[in-house]
């Protein structure tokens, strides 16, 4: 047995580039160098600015739901940068792929496999989880999540999966069978290398982490609401978070289980999904999509929640059709579990099975349509401010409806037989995931950013980024519909029909615009940090918000609320402001109990990454070491008794009174001055629109 398993010097893209210099190997080596340079420069910057201690104390070991949420979003943005870059490389390659192309077919396959896996599991999921983490406890008047340490563990598991995917860029190769990793192609016989193992050991911890997050969110919303907050008084984002959480609990286990079954096939000679000895690879597709379809609604429901908050706040109106929005959300959550077969209409089952799932798929468009009308009615005759979230909302309205309509087209099995496995499908799911999920999350970040950090994001750069995302999306993905209808198969490393070229060029140009959008997004954050004094909104209510989270200072203190609020209506904060009684003084403060800092999540992250890496390369001693460490950490944690810290009432009172005094001295601003430096986070009374 070798000490380092299957590892040796020949597995890096650098040795490939030296042994076989070509554009293909140089691109791979370049990507690997970027990962190494990125990691090293982060280490250097942390040391240069002496940030190690704050990073450790305030972030990595913190059990504060807001900080955990921010870490989720940072992870997602890092992975987004890689995912977008991969997408741009693929579009660039395909534009040159008439009778060939710069990259090898295997390299191209690695690109679309990592791109899909990263975008779904390590960009969209962490964005959604991060935003829910930050917002939900604030909206329901809670001090933290129900299980703050489990929250850390969820983050640790997700980060471990992401780390392994980043490692796969430098050491070895990733899987080449797409983000779904269908066997038998990903079985030992057809893919003997380490690729599918990298995929498995990234997906399994991420799936576990998301399931734990789901349990955490559901319990928090069920059990930790402020007194008086009944279900029908919850803000709509919290409603969508609840439905998403319940879906996570039921939808994540199938993918974890099917990946582990695939692992048993590959490592232990099982035959769940192999070609012989009773294996049934069709059951893999079945189990995978039992996760895969609810997953897209897990991602898009919180975005719907963001749109509901954004539409109401920025048109200064009550949300139209609250009850219908709640009902639609719950209907979507249930119906989304009855449509998974539409991902494999062409697998060979009879027409009656296909049409049953096809009809279910068309039905799910109905509650979504209800929602779109509700949002439009919310905006109707409101005083709309074209802030960055509203620009995203506008893009979403137009583009998401197109994406939804192509979805209804695809839901018809007879049409699906014509266009399945073409770029038409690729265009469709990008058309719902980018304007739906990504725009929603970017709008949500812009909307709640001041609550967490205490200053607004720069509106000019934010608007530039939003515009570039909308235009870039249209240029890149609308041509793919045309290419798909012309018959171009998805995942093609090369083609022979020159008729594809014009649309390919257009899409490649669009990819450049999207790169610009990504750069503008990061620029927004950098510019805003530089101008943070100018953009500061310490009084906490920059948008004249309607829900509880805006009734706190910005940045919101670790304990969220000085005293837990009593809720007597929907849009509690908006009604208080209308009645002229917001920011009421508090007569008695009490000590506040909060979770203590812990290294649990970080330990789980390191041990899981180690276990995964060792399993990929068959380094058995390291597997045993890391996995035992993982188990011992959990057992040791069960014996920890000193897990809480007390914030004395005097400290709470001091900070809260200082904030109330600052509010008393400020006159507030009208909505016209919302995007100027006069906005300190206090809304002047405004005419009420009903």
């Amino acid at each position, binding site marked *: 047995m070798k000490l380092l398993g299957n590892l040796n010097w020949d597995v890096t893209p650098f040795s490939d580039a030296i042994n076989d210099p070509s554009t293909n190997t140089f691109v791979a080596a370049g990507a690997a160098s970027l990962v190494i340079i990125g990691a090293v420069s982060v280490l250097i910057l942390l040391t240069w600015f002496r940030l190690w201690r704050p990073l450790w104390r305030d972030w990595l070991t913190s059990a504060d739901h807001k900080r955990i949420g921010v870490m989720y979003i940072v992870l997602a943005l890092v992975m987004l940068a890689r995912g977008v870059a991969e997408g741009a490389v693929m579009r660039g390659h395909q534009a040159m792929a008439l009778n060939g192309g710069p990259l090898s077919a295997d390299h191209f396959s690695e690109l679309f496999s990592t791109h899909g896996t990263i975008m779904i599991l390590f960009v969209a999921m962490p964005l959604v989880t991060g935003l829910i983490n930050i917002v939900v406890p604030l909206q329901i008047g809670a001090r933290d999540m129900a299980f703050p340490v489990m929250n850390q563990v969820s983050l640790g598991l997700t980060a471990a999966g992401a780390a392994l995917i980043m490692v796969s860029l430098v050491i070895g190769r990733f899987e080449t069978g797409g983000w779904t990793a269908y066997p038998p192609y990903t079985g030992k016989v057809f893919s003997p290398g380490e690729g599918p193992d990298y995929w498995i050991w990234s997906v399994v911890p991420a799936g576990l982490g998301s399931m734990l997050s789901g349990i955490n969110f559901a319990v928090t919303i*069920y059990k930790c609401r402020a007194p008086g907050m009944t279900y029908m008084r919850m803000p709509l984002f919290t409603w969508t978070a609840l439905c998403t959480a*319940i879906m996570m609990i*039921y939808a994540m286990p*199938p993918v974890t289980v099917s990946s582990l079954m695939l692992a048993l096939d590959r490592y232990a000679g099982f035959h769940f999904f192999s070609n012989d000895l009773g294996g*049934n690879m*069709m*059951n893999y597709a*079945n*189990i995978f999509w*039992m996760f895969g379809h609810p997953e897209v609604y897990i991602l898009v429901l919180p975005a719907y929640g963001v749109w509901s908050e954004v539409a109401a706040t920025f048109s200064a109106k009550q949300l139209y059709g609250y009850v219908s929005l709640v009902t639609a959300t719950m209907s979507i959550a*249930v119906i989304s*579990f*009855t449509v*998974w*077969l539409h991902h494999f209409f062409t*697998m*060979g*089952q*009879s027409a009656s*099975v296909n049409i049953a799932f096809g009809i279910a798929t068309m039905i799910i468009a109905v509650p979504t349509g209800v929602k779109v009308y509700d949002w439009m009615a919310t905006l109707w005759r409101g005083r709309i401010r074209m802030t960055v979230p509203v620009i995203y909302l506008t893009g979403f309205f137009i583009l998401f409806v197109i994406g939804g309509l192509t979805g209804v087209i695809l839901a018809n099995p007879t049409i699906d037989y014509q266009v399945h496995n073409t770029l038409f499908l690729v265009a469709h799911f990008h058309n719902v995931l980018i304007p739906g999920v990504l725009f929603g999350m970017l709008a949500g970040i812009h909307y709640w950013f001041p609550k967490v950090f205490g200053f607004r994001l720069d509106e000019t750069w934010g608007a530039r980024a939003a515009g570039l995302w909308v235009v870039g999306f249209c240029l890149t993905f609308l041509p793919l519909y045309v290419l798909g209808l012309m018959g171009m198969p998805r995942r093609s490393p090369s083609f022979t029909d020159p008729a594809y070229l014009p649309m390919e060029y257009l899409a490649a140009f669009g990819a450049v615009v999207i790169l610009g959008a990504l750069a503008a997004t990061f620029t927004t954050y950098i510019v805003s940090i530089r101008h943070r004094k100018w953009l500061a909104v310490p009084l906490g209510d920059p948008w004249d918000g309607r829900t509880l989270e805006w009734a706190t200072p910005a940045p919101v203190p670790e304990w969220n609320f000085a005293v837990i609020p009593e809720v007597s209506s929907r849009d509690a904060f908006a009604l208080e402001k209308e009645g002229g009684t917001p920011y009421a003084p508090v007569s008695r403060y009490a000590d506040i109990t909060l979770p203590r800092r812990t290294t649990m999540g970080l330990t789980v992250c390191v041990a899981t990454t180690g276990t995964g890496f060792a399993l990929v390369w068959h380094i058995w001693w390291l597997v045993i070491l890391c996995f035992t460490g993982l188990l011992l950490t959990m057992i040791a944690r069960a014996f920890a008794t000193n897990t809480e810290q007390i914030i004395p009432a005097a400290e709470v009172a001091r900070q809260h009174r200082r904030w109330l005094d600052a509010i008393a001295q400020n006159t507030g601003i009208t909505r016209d001055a919302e995007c100027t430096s006069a906005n300190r986070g206090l809304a002047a009374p405004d005419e009420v629109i009903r």
Partner: protein
Amino acid sequence: MSEERRERRSYLIGTLLSILLTAIAFATIPLDLPRGGTMLLIGISAVLQVIVQLRFFLHIDLSRQKREDLQLILFSLLLLGIMAGGTIWILTNLSQRMM
């Protein structure tokens, strides 16, 4: 009757019922019933076993404050039914068409 005694009695009844149901399932083998009857008996005692465990050990009943837990359990049953039923439908259909 004190709260504690009532609780203890409830646990005791639950334990006895679950032992009884387990015993019935095992007894079908020495009793040598016809195959269909054996399956049916084991199936019924399994379902009853689940209900006994929920009622006596997890304290799920129809009272108002347990309503949320009951809803979650019913929702789980619905989803598991959809997943298991759907899988059986799809895979038997595929299997028939490949014969």
